[in-house]
């Protein structure tokens, strides 16, 4: 009885699926899905040889500092970093006095001790980077109705995030003539910017890094080309998203050595115990 009823259920589901398949295949052949501009022109991020790649990779502190400088002078005009505390900038090699100065230069929300009203005050190391806009409505109003996303986790919130950020920053270009010829409707709209690394190819953000030397790097640092600045700020944002990466990798190495040793011992114990037993 179980087998009979089960067989009926199986025939029903398998039959419905095969009918759906035939139906789908017929319409797929008779009316194949049209190609889209996104499918043909979207590009995967450029692969950069980051210092933090691989199991032994570490952050390059000088690069993180340059990236922080790019973030502060360019990105922070619109993008917040609200999961990151000033004190954690010690990871970049800044000392206590420098961190205090960085925090102090930024206004964070506070309460006026005399009136109790909401106000702002210079930041302290324990504070987080302040929001740029008080709310999404204000962010939209100031940015042609697009919200500049918070960047704290951007490097983990996109596939291949570190490479993605770099590619977006260097990827702005004119729309290819071929695209316009094939997909006349896909013309980049007013207030948007063509970028093949962006999922739908058209990005509200104007190219933020447009000229060499837009940020002045300290003596002895590489030349601030657009590509260099883009790499530096991507490295900085990777740190911002994954500040514990170096601890994680070095802990992992220790754990692996321990486990390898333990597993070899366990294997030897296993062989020893079973040595007299055929199995």
């Amino acid at each position: 009885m179980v087998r009979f009823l089960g067989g009926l259920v199986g025939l029903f589901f398998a039959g419905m699926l095969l009918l759906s398949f035939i139906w789908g295949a017929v319409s797929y052949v008779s009316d194949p899905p049209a190609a889209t501009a996104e499918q043909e022109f979207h590009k995967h991020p450029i692969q950069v040889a980051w210092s933090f790649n691989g199991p032994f990779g570490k952050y390059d502190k000088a690069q993180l500092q340059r990236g922080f400088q790019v973030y502060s002078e360019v990105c922070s005009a619109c993008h917040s970093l609200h999961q990151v505390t000033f004190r954690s900038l010690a990871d970049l090699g800044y000392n206590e006095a420098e961190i205090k100065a960085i925090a102090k230069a930024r206004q964070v929300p506070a309460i006026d001790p005399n009136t109790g009203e909401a106000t702002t005050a210079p930041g302290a190391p324990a504070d987080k980077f302040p929001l740029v806009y008080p709310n999404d409505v204000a962010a939209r109003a100031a940015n042609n109705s697009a919200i500049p996303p918070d960047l704290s986790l951007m490097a983990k919130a996109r596939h291949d995030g570190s490479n993605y950020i770099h590619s977006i920053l260097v990827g702005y270009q004119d729309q290819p003539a071929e695209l316009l010829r094939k997909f006349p409707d896909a013309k980049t709209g007013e207030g948007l910017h063509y970028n093949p690394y962006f999922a739908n190819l058209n990005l509200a953000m104007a190219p933020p890094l447009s000229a060499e030397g837009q940020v002045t790097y300290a003596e002895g640092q590489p030349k601030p080309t657009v590509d260099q600045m883009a790499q530096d700020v991507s490295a900085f944002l990777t740190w911002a998203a994954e500040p514990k990466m170096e601890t994680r990798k070095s802990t992992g190495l220790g754990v692996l050595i321990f486990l390898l040793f333990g597993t070899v011992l366990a294997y030897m114990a296993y062989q020893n115990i079973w040595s007299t037993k055929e199995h």
Partner: protein
Amino acid sequence: MSFPWAEHYTPKNPVMKWVDERLPLPRLVYNAVGAGYPVPRNLNYFWNFGVLAGVALTIQLVTGIILAMHYAANAGIAFDSVEHIMRDVNSGWLMRYAHANGASFFFIVVYLHIFRGLFYGSYKAPREMVWLLGIVIFLLMMATAFLGYVLPWGQMSFWGAQVITGLFAAIPVVGEPIQTWLLGGFAPGNASLNRFFSLHYLLPFVLAGVIILHIWALHIPGSSNPTGVEVKGPQDTVPFHPYYTAKDGFGLGIFLIIFALVLFFAPNSMGHPDNYIAANPMSTPAHIVPEWYFWPFYAILRAFTMDLTIPFTGIVIIEAKLLGVMAMFASILLLFFLSWIDTSPVRSGKYRPLFKKFFVLLVIDVLILGYCGGAPAEEPFVMISQLAAAYYFAHFLIILPIIASIERPDPLPGSITEAVLAKSTHTHDDAASPASAAAAAE
């Protein structure tokens, strides 16, 4: 617990004797996982995964309880509290990555455990109850994993909760009220998050309870083995301790090494980047996908694209969405009936030539379903998953009973010991022949 064929426990240590007379806990341990539990001597490495699943659950419990000390189940701050764990809690990143990847590894070992059972016929008499409880465990795991994935309150959390509770909305008439009741509102919100957290903390302990029943039920007939031939006497078994504790110790080492490789060097490889974006009810992700361990079932859900209608009238009997939901639940629930569907008297797939071929097909089929479930709902993935899902149902409900009645199994060994000795003389022959050939050449 009473194990009919366990060895009698005689405490050697006076303290143990004292305890055992008052509370027979030493006896229980001795009979359950000690020298008092005789186990077939021929178990292969596929028999390691039950113990590994237990270890995986323990990892989840320990890391989860610690995470709950720092996590805030409130829609306003849940996402930030997870980042607080990742950045500011001592070793919080380790606990959180271990918990997130631990869930994946729990499913990996449980899937291997289930497929072991499918191949070696562990669901057959007299172990039906072990199998049934196993399916209950699997369902509880899926529920717990889904609830847990909602807690970080990222985009996939939010939209996953919307989609999965939306499955119930496909039920005619009462569906939408049920979804509203499950969520505590018309969309996922604070009420949903709070109850999901509460249930996510509760269910693992229910799971632990059912696991105890699963092991208890296992100890009545005792473990199965790769030949599927029952134990005939003491020469067929070895005591669980030290033989299988040693073997499981080695298996555990391998498991932990692979777990550590992912946890420390690619901790986000099994997650979805969208869940690092805070939940936003106003913005739907381009592709809503569950975690990888749900992909085969998600593919079955989405494979139904045609309403069931009365031909030529256009009257819809069952909508495609409801069919998908029914099929998805059926794809797991049918496993409850497996012991009575596959009536072949031979347990082990090793001696079932026809079954073996279809088993390989099933494994490939489930992998294809998994791939399609993770892919966007576009062609050709929908068509592929339709064929793969059709095979899935046909395999369990149509092909297995047919194989059972037409197959001519290979001859079974007379006993476990016979199989073991035949194998070892066979390997000795193999080892000897090249040497003798070399000697002859000289």
